[in-house]
């Protein structure tokens, strides 16, 4: 664990140092510098404002290596002193010429300059993100190692997860299947992955209860992963024979086609328990409301804020936002997982403090007392 932290710190440091190398600048009226924090397709062309004259606009020209002539690139307003040119080939030389169009209609050359765009290995605009991520990771790892050390961590109860057993039990007693919808996201959506981890837990239970499980999928990759997970879950509880190959199946990737299929399953098979976990869009209410009308116990969980109201009104239990991600930790009661929850809580506390400080600073700025833009800049990300 400690090693990992050290490695993180070292990497961060290395990146910082590598980023500090100054790019070759030419001593000339017009400087052409490599644009920082990019893939090597941009340069920054900068020029001094000519003294004593009023400039209407600057015309920037780039040397065409084939013809050996300057071709106009663009024109910028007279009060600007630099331009970022992008879309260049990395590590090639480029020359620029800047011509000032004066207010009186005359033009005057400002100067020429050359430079070479290179790709950087670290995006300094994302340094704050890195710092945030690294601190968060360290926080989580610390709590995980604490949990591993056997420290008891209190975690509040989530009714929706407490109810999972009960919901599966209900289906079992009623002789009805359980429907698990892992959302409409694809395998690269973190919410879908969270849903899959919940499915693994649910499948273990359905294997124990010997209750049929129906998992209609919208994404074939998700289907493949989920099928393996469910199979594994059945094997693990010693019931590989109870696993039904076709319980996890593909439906369609059409959003409403999928909804129609799932609604059809609900109306025909009358599952006693419906799980909706993962990413959902406009179809959430159609699914949940149909489920409610068939009398099923419904447990939903999504990180899509706009779908919360629909699930809350139509489902028995709803996991909101992060609760979805926390679910496996709760269901598994694995100390490592619980440790990560604690880490999240602390991160939230930190963010809360930052928000409060920010709010105070903004209020102070409003009073015109202090300049607080430095604080805002800490959290800015330039793209």
């Amino acid at each position, binding site marked *: 664990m400690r090693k990992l932290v050290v490695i993180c710190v070292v990497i961060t440091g290395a990146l910082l140092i590598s980023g500090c190398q100054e790019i070759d600048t030419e001593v000339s009226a017009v400087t052409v510098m490599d644009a920082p924090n990019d893939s090597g397709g941009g340069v920054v062309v900068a020029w001094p404002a000519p003294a004593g004259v009023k400039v209407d606009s600057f015309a920037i020209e780039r040397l065409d290596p084939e013809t050996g002539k300057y071709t106009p690139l663009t024109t910028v307003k007279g009060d600007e002193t630099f331009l970022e040119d992008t879309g260049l080939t990395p590590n090639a030389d480029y020359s620029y010429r800047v011509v000032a169009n004066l207010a009186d209609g005359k033009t005057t050359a400002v100067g020429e300059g050359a430079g070479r765009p290179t790709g950087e290995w670290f995006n300094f605009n994302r340094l704050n993100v890195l710092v945030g991520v690294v601190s968060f990771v360290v926080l989580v790892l610390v709590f995980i190692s604490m949990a591993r050390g056997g420290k008891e961590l209190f975690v509040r109860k989530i009714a929706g997860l407490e109810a999972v057993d009960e919901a599966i*039990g*209900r289906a079992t*007693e009623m002789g009805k299947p359980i429907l698990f919808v892992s959302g409409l996201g694809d395998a690269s959506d973190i919410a879908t992955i969270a849903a899959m981890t919940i499915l693994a837990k649910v499948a273990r*239970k359905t294997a*124990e209860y*010997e209750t049929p499980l129906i998992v209609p999928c919208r994404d074939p990759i998700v289907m493949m992963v989920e099928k393996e997970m469910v199979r594994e879950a059945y094997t693990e509880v010693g019931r590989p024979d109870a696993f039904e190959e076709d319980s996890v199946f593909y439906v369609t990737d059409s959003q409403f086609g999928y909804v129609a299929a799932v609604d059809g399953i609900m109306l025909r098979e009358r599952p006693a328990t419906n799980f909706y976990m993962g990413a959902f869009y406009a179809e959430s209410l159609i699914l949940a409301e149909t489920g409610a009308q068939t009398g099923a*116990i419904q447990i939903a969980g999504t990180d899509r804020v706009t779908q919360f109201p629909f699930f809350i*009104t139509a489902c028995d239990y709803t996991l909101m936002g992060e609760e979805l991600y926390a679910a496996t930790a709760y269901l598994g009661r694995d100390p490592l997982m619980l440790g990560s929850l604690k880490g999240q809580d602390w991160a939230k506390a930190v963010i809360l403090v930052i928000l409060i400080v920010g709010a105070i600073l903004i209020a102070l700025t409003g009073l015109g007392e202090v300049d607080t833009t430095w604080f805002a800049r800490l959290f800015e990300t330039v793209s």
Partner: protein
Amino acid sequence: MAQDYSHVKTILATDCGSTTTKAILIEKEGEEYRLKVRGEAPTTVEKPAEDVTRGVLNAVGEVEELSGRTLLKKVKVLHSGKGIKGGTDVYLSTSSAGGGLQMMVAGVVKSMTGESAQRAALGAGAIVMDVLASNDGRLGHEKIEAIRRLRPDMILLSGGIDGGTISHVVELAELIGAADPKPRFGSGYDLPVIYAGNKDARGNVKGSLEAKTDLYVVDNIRPVLERENLGPARHEIHNLFMEHVMAQAPGYSKLMEWTDEPIMPTPGAVGEIIQTIASTYGIEAIGVDIGGATTDVFSVFGGVFNRTVSANLGMSYSVSNVVAETGLPNIMRWVPFSVDERAIRDRVRNKMIRPTTIPQTLEDLIVEQAIAREALRLAFEQHKSLAVGLKGIQQQRTISDAFAQTATGGTLVNMMNLDMLVGSGGALSHAPRRAQAGLMLIDGFMPECVTFLAVDSIFMMPQLGVLSKVMPKAATQVFDRDCLVRLGSCVAPVGSGKEGSNCLHIEADFPGLGHISEDVKLGEMRLLPLPVGEKVRAKLDPARGFDLGAGKGDAREVTLEGGVVGVVLDCRGRPFQIPEDETKRVNAITGWLQNLDIYPKVF
């Protein structure tokens, strides 16, 4: 039940326990029924006598001797009638001899129909040896192995709501069939199996079990998940208990002929009296019977009756198990002095292998009562986990639930609402001082707000229970006048706070004490003497953060009832926490013991 009991003047009732048979004689005095005398004799189910009636005759013989009323004719209980001198108008009996009624129950989901089946069997007075369920984590052959090994007296099979799962129930039936179980007593008859599950599966269950067992089909105990229907199954259990289990036990066929009503399993009868009391007075009540091998807890909350039996928590045969389950430190925390752990372990074991011995020294008594506290606590924990609402119910959500979503199946036991706590069994009824019984009840159950404590003087609740089935009024009268030993009210504010801060202010006019207006600190216990039958209106003002039923910090006026102990003010806070520091702990306990005058000596 068709008999008319309105002219009954004499009632004889016996309870055949596993070690002693107890007989009581109740007579009508004017308009009231009162206990006349009682007698007891060792139970004679086992070798060498092997006839339960010999013990009954001995016990009744003692009653006869003491009351001077002829109750026996040769070797038979004498019923009164024309031209007969003496005799009894009614003779009733309960029995738990031979280990009582031992059942196995099966349901589809352990926490749903499995739990309902368990409640049905427990409520009927059975000991549930095992709960089979589709999801109990055991594989088929392990379940079969369990059925074979345990050899229950009967099996209650349930599962599935009406119209629900068939395959799970049939699978269980197939497993029971494959186990081909044999009953515990006697051979040559098939094991009774009661089927109380999905009505659609009846045909299939019959197909699997009819040939191999003695199958009885009754209404589903869980027709829908939202409702339990335990009556028919319980009734059938009673019938079968009589017809099969009892009929096989030595001497019972004779005893069954003597009694006017069917013999009930002892715990079932105790359940009856608790229910009768709760409904007569409209109160929430808990009863506990701590025995040598088992501890039974009965509760009535919101009109719902629940019984649990902790088969391995008791004060003699099971005493080692209490220690094993709770751990020695948990027991020693109640003891105001330190004892060598190894010595204690050996001592407890010796109690187990020689269960009939009694504590001679005070230290011995204190340790034994500490074990009793833990036995009570553990039994109550088990009770709380089974006395729960139904699980698996669909919730009707409204926007109100956006803030808090509650789960179903919470415990029904709400200590805040508990009105009466009745204890019985050797450890409580025979405690040298009544205050000891009172404190054991308080420590074991941690009553909240205002709770009235009592003990059963001579363990006659079983007899009264079977009586309450036919003459509820007579049963309540005797219970009230002769059975209960009133200990007094216990006041316990709920909440926690800083050590040494104020917890409760009480203001009342106590006869003998005059007007009192006192503050009680957190962590303190006090006793206000108030004789039996006296009632006092008191203004109780809990400190901030403490609740006495009116809300946190809100004052309340209540009626406190006296008893042989008096009114106990328990300001140790709820949830109760014992100081971790050794000196503090000993000081705290010594304080409580002194204030309540529990033991003759101070440690």
